């Protein structure tokens, strides 16, 4: 599905505080599987995740999505690919305050220009799937942490992406909610979605729904 060859990513290039967050990564993400990236903070897992999810371009190296080289693409096209192929769940949920749950869910679909009616129907179905149908008009800041995360999951799914990317998804959840989240994730994996996540929560990394574990340290893969 996704292949990385010799990926390097630098920050503050050419300045005195230049540093390489990724120092030569070769990795293949298998299709329809759950892959977990783990490692201490500062090991480069989030940077790797942004490159896998087309949020950022590598400084050097090649990224292939289904065989097509996308590493040199300008942001405009990368965004298009990202919108169609990836759904994101962030650690802080990153919902837009002041908007209702359903408004938040449909946001990623605005640039596609799909008719509003169609979008709202789809969003309602997604919210109903995670038992939030009754909260759809509630402003997101009134929702509990678990509810906010479920809204974030629905938002990640509105464009029907093949790949779901989650950054530390259980960091802000207690054990019960984390368990609930893993349940939802399992359901999505069973439906054939590719899932990539970062975590240092043993509950996630050691759960049976994760098929592959990649361990990073100092910008390199140490165990696969």
């Amino acid at each position, binding site marked *: 599905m996704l292949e990385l060859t010799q990926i390097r990513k630098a920050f503050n290039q050419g300045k005195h505080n230049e540093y390489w967050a990724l120092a030569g990564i070769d990795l293949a993400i298998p299709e329809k599987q759950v892959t977990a990236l783990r490692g201490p903070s500062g090991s480069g897992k989030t940077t790797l995740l942004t490159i896998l999810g087309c949020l950022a371009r590598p400084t050097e190296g090649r990224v292939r999505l289904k065989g097509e080289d996308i590493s040199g693409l*300008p942001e405009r096209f990368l965004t298009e690919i990202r919108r169609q192929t990836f759904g994101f769940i962030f650690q802080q949920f990153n919902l837009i305050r002041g908007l209702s749950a359903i408004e938040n869910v449909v946001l990623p679909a605005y640039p596609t220009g799909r008719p509003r009616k169609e979008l709202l129907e789809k969003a309602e179905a997604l919210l109903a799937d995670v038992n939030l149908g009754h909260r759809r008009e509630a402003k997101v800041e009134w929702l509990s942490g678990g509810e906010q995360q479920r809204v974030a999951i629905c938002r990640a799914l509105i464009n029907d992406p093949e790949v779901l990317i989650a950054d530390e998804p259980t960091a802000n959840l207690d054990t019960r909610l984390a368990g609930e989240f893993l349940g939802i994730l399992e359901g999505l994996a069973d439906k054939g979605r590719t899932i990539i996540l970062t975590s240092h929560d043993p509950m996630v990394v050691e759960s049976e729904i994760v098929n592959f574990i990649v361990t990073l340290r100092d910008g390199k893969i140490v165990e696969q």
Partner: protein
Amino acid sequence: MIFQPAIIALLLAASLSLLMLIIASPFAMQVIRHWDITSGSERQLKLERLTYLFSTLVAFVCLVQILSALLFVFNADKMSVMFVGAMCAVGALNVNEFGFPALYLQLALFFLATLWLAINHADSQARDYPLVKLKYALLLAAIPLFALSLGLQLQYFLGLKADVITSCCGSLFSSDAPTLASEVSALEPKPALLMFYGSLIVAITLSGWHWRDKGNLSGYASGLGALAAFVASIAGILAFVSLYIYEHPHHHCPFCILKPEYDYQGYWLYLPLFAAAAAGMSAGVLRVFANRPSLAQVVPALTGRLAGIAAISYVLFALIASLMIWQSNLILLD
């Protein structure tokens, strides 16, 4: 110099446009020198981000050009009361030798800006941005033109002194004075009519052809057709369309038709005409890039669409002009 609001507004617009372009020019130089699409370096990412600023900027400058060309004509018309013998915009523009050149340059800048936007549109649809260096070179090349435009306007306004005896549209566009405009006006209605409708039909056919066919030959042909039709249309407006609107056999003026006395009919003519000319000519120029590999898909789709816009706008223009002629009480031809 005559000190009044519209003049200040025009000078403000021209100098701000120029200033924005000048401030942007070092960045354009950077793009030309350091652009490397295959690199993922931070510099390249920064340059790519800059391109958004430029296209927004040029779109804005283009809009300002349209508005200030209109304001320029409006203002000239209003100022005409201050000059003996000037009865409309033409008279006021003729007060000194910079009036008409300033207007012509503004119109030219409008067409250049739309062309740049068309090239920009094509370029940003190709994944490797193949025209990026050309685009920014063009932008740098246009800066002197913007400076010239400001200079001409400044010269024109500074040279204005109320009470200068000027010619008005009656004498400039009447058949005696030996100027280009008067020669156009002196065209007999019948050949002018034939040329007008003939070139419009040719342009519409060529554009329509390119719309369906999207080939190189039809593309260049439709671009030339659009240019020819634009020239013939302006000539036609001078030679006879305006006469029908004024219902006066000797009033050849392209500006008075914009006035409220004639129900702003000029806008209905000029809007589709300029849209058609800009779209058609852009389509023709864009064909030059059709052979670039990454543009092979993009350019034909775009030029086809532009030709379609040109064809529809010219049809609209022809229909509106014909309607105005048909409704007029003036009889030029039996």
